[in-house]
């Protein structure tokens, strides 16, 4: 149904512009069909411009962190149109500097009123913002287990331990 797809994309585009402006701290993003009159014959193009950059910027030239933020903005934009009951993010903050990792974790926290968010992460910033923490370990024998009595403090400590031994 061409009409239906066009209507959906219009709405997701409108959401995307909003979310990307928020997540990038003032940047501009949009989605547009390559063939607006015949959506199924063309693809869906995406464009994102972080704040301060030239409007000539191409998506391929963006940095790893900037591409991660644009992709996550699209996921949130789709959620606003048609939510899934849960979102499972495995190390989506790999590329992100601490400020961007915090923006993503904050958005997951806010949106966790409407959907369940589960983020696998190694980053202190993301661990700080989660409500609930699960620790998994493989106590040296190749068998995975859950760490008992695991909370925010212990989660952050797990990561910090290596660092404090350096000092």
């Amino acid at each position, binding site marked *: 149904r061409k009409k*239906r*797809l066009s209507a*959906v*994309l219009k709405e997701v585009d409108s959401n995307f512009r909003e979310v990307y402006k928020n997540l990038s701290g003032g940047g501009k993003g949009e989605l547009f069909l*390559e063939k607006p009159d015949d959506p*199924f014959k*063309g693809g*869906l*193009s*995406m464009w994102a411009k972080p704040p301060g950059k030239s409007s000539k910027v191409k*998506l*391929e030239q*963006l940095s790893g962190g900037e*591409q*991660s933020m*644009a*992709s996550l903005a699209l*996921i949130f934009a*789709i959620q606003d*149109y*048609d939510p*899934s*009951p*849960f*979102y*499972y*993010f*495995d190390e*989506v903050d*790999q*590329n992100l500097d601490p400020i961007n990792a915090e923006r993503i*974790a904050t958005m997951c*926290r806010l949106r*966790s*009123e409407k959907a*369940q*968010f*589960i*983020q*696998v*992460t190694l980053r202190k910033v*993301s*661990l700080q913002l*989660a*409500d*609930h*923490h*699960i*620790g*998994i*370990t*493989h106590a*040296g*024998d*190749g*068998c*995975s*287990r859950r*760490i008992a009595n695991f909370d925010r403090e212990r*989660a952050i400590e797990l990561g910090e331990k290596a660092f404090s031994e350096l000092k």
Partner: protein
Amino acid sequence: MYLKGLELENFKSFKGQVDVPFIRGFTAITGPNGSGKSNCGDAIQFVLGTKSNKNIRADNSKDLIFNGGGSNRPARGCKVTLIFDNPAAEDERRSLNIDTDEVRLTRSIRLTKSNNVVSEYFLNGESSSRNHFRMLLAGANASADGYNIVLQGDVTNLARMTPSKRRKVLDKVA
């Protein structure tokens, strides 16, 4: 509706039975490299019915069964249960179209004596099928391989994929 937890039994690096409980809000999973965090995501996709074993980093189904770890005593099968909270809304409708407040979706694989793989599905403990799971999950907007699951290393995919692949992602949603 939300995912209350997982019960893993001999699935990948999880020896014996391990429970992983979640909450309604925002959960973070952490731990050392190789501890089994991404295997939890694989377990979820395994039950939802991912299209290909490649998506859960297995060449074939046998790779999903706990291989014995350091002691090298492998299991002969594995089982994963997803436990969903499935309350009735005011209009008495539920996300998963089954009339129970809690829904347990279980998938198991086991090796027969001749080392063939048998895959089984159970809904609240009763025998079910892959198709029944698919219908239930589609009705709840929780199908396998959805845009809502981002595997490790895939976070930039939506920005890097071709326009036609990206449109297909939206087709599935529309």
